[in-house]
């Protein structure tokens, strides 16, 4: 459904030339929930922007349903890492969430419903009329999430969407994303730095290497589909998987690949 083929992205500046992504190839099936982890600065955001059609790759291509992505595709929602700047400061929280729906020509009543639901789901009921800059960092981030959730997208790209919220809220939001995924069959690509989160949420975890970036490993998470914060995280398999991912990330940062570990998981 979503195919990334030989993706390469080089940022050319005045004196700076950064090869953010060297060569990425992977596929995500429709309805998959894939988590993406990788060292800071390895090109996750870059990759997401290329998939979202916001950035033209230097080489390679992104295909969505077999068609190359040249601009933002219909039915896609993105939660940006720079959540604060992605909210429109001139609009109330409600309007921020409602605007994409309006664009999508959702009827007014339904729009209201969706907005209210989404805001309630992220724990922001009651802040509808506030401006984003009147909110705390975590609250702003949740507005951005609510906007994506209310949009009911077919493909959802999230770039470290829970970085600014507390542990409890984070757990709730994780469950929200899984619920949304199950209910609507959304295809989700989820960037996170929290390894537990990646394993808890994903059906698949893609690990990126440090720069020059390639896919370090792709790991299927063979935990049961029904997950909950208490039991899933206490599961031995969970611990095993998270340890593996952790080791891979460490290896990625060192620039090596611990093939032994892969074998031990893939066995």
């Amino acid at each position, binding site marked *: 459904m979503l195919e990334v083929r030989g993706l390469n992205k080089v940022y*050319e500046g*005045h004196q700076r030339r950064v090869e953010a992504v060297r060569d990425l190839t992977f596929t995500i099936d429709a309805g998959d929930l894939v988590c993406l982890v990788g060292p800071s600065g390895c090109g996750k955001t870059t990759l997401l922007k290329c998939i979202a059609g916001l*950035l033209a790759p230097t080489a390679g291509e992104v295909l969505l349903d077999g068609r190359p992505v040249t601009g933002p595709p219909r039915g896609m929602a993105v939660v940006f890492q720079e959540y604060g700047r992605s909210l429109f400061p001139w609009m109330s929280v409600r309007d921020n969430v409602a605007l994409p729906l309006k664009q999508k020509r959702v009827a007014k009543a339904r729009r209201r419903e969706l907005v209210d639901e989404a805001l309630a789901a992220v724990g922001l009921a009651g802040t509808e009329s506030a401006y984003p800059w009147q909110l705390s960092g975590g609250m702003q981030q949740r507005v951005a999430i609510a906007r994506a959730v209310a949009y009911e997208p077919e493909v959802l790209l999230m770039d470290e969407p829970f970085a600014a919220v507390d542990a409890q809220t984070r757990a709730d939001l994780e469950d929200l994303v899984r619920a949304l995924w199950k209910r609507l069959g959304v295809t989700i690509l989820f960037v996170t730095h929290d390894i537990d989160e990646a394993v808890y949420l994903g059906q698949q975890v893609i690990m990126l290497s440090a720069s020059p970036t390639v896919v370090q490993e792709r790991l299927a998470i063979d935990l049961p589909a029904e997950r909950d914060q208490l039991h899933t995280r206490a599961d031995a398999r969970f611990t095993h998987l998270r340890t593996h991912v952790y080791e891979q990330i460490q290896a990625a940062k060192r620039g090596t690949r611990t093939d032994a570990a892969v074998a031990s998981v893939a066995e």
Partner: protein
Amino acid sequence: MAATALKRIGLVLGLPVILFAVWYVATDNSQSFYVPPLRTILSVFDDTWTGQRLRADVLPSALRLLAGYALATVLGVGLGVVIGSYRRVRAVAEPVLEFFRAIPPPVLVPVIMLFAGIGDGMKVIVIVSGCVWPILLNTVEGVRAVDGVLADTARSYRITGPARLRHLLLRSASPQIMAGMRQALSIAIILMVISEMFAASNGLGFTIVQFQRSFAIPEMWTGIILLGLLGFVLSALFRFAENRVLAWYHGLRSAQRKS
């Protein structure tokens, strides 16, 4: 590389060439005394703007223009920073400034003459009196709009006084200040002309007004074209400077967009 250069030249010259062509054709049979054929205008251009005249009229004008513009920039940015930084100062000064801003230069000039005489000083002051406004207003707004987080950062690291001015206020407001300075550039040219309508005996504006008065209409049009060219050249220089000063800003704004 050559292709892009060619494209840029095409973009710079394309529209003007088309417009001049339209002008040329549209006025070719013009009988109107005040709208002579462009052909006529162009044919007198060389004789009108001789080296002698460029030296005697255009140069003094340009010097006054630059002096006025420089002074207006210093004044506009300086006052703007103060007014933009302190709400009370702004409250006191704004109505007074708005008062003067609304007075037309032709009315203001005689008043300025009362204090500044009729020499070059007066003309420079007239230029300043008109082109300081866009710089001032934009600086005030730019300084008021400094990002709150950035301002907090500067404060918490005790970046105060001149360092704050240099590293925070001016830089942060610079996109808006540049907008003001660009506005001011063409206003300075306009006021150069107006200032030379009073007590002048040389200058580009003076010459144009003389042409107008003595019914040398094609020559007057050449003067207007020359003003346009002057504006174009100055703005090209300005753009060059702006691209250096705002390199970070253009990079920031277009980093994601263009690539």
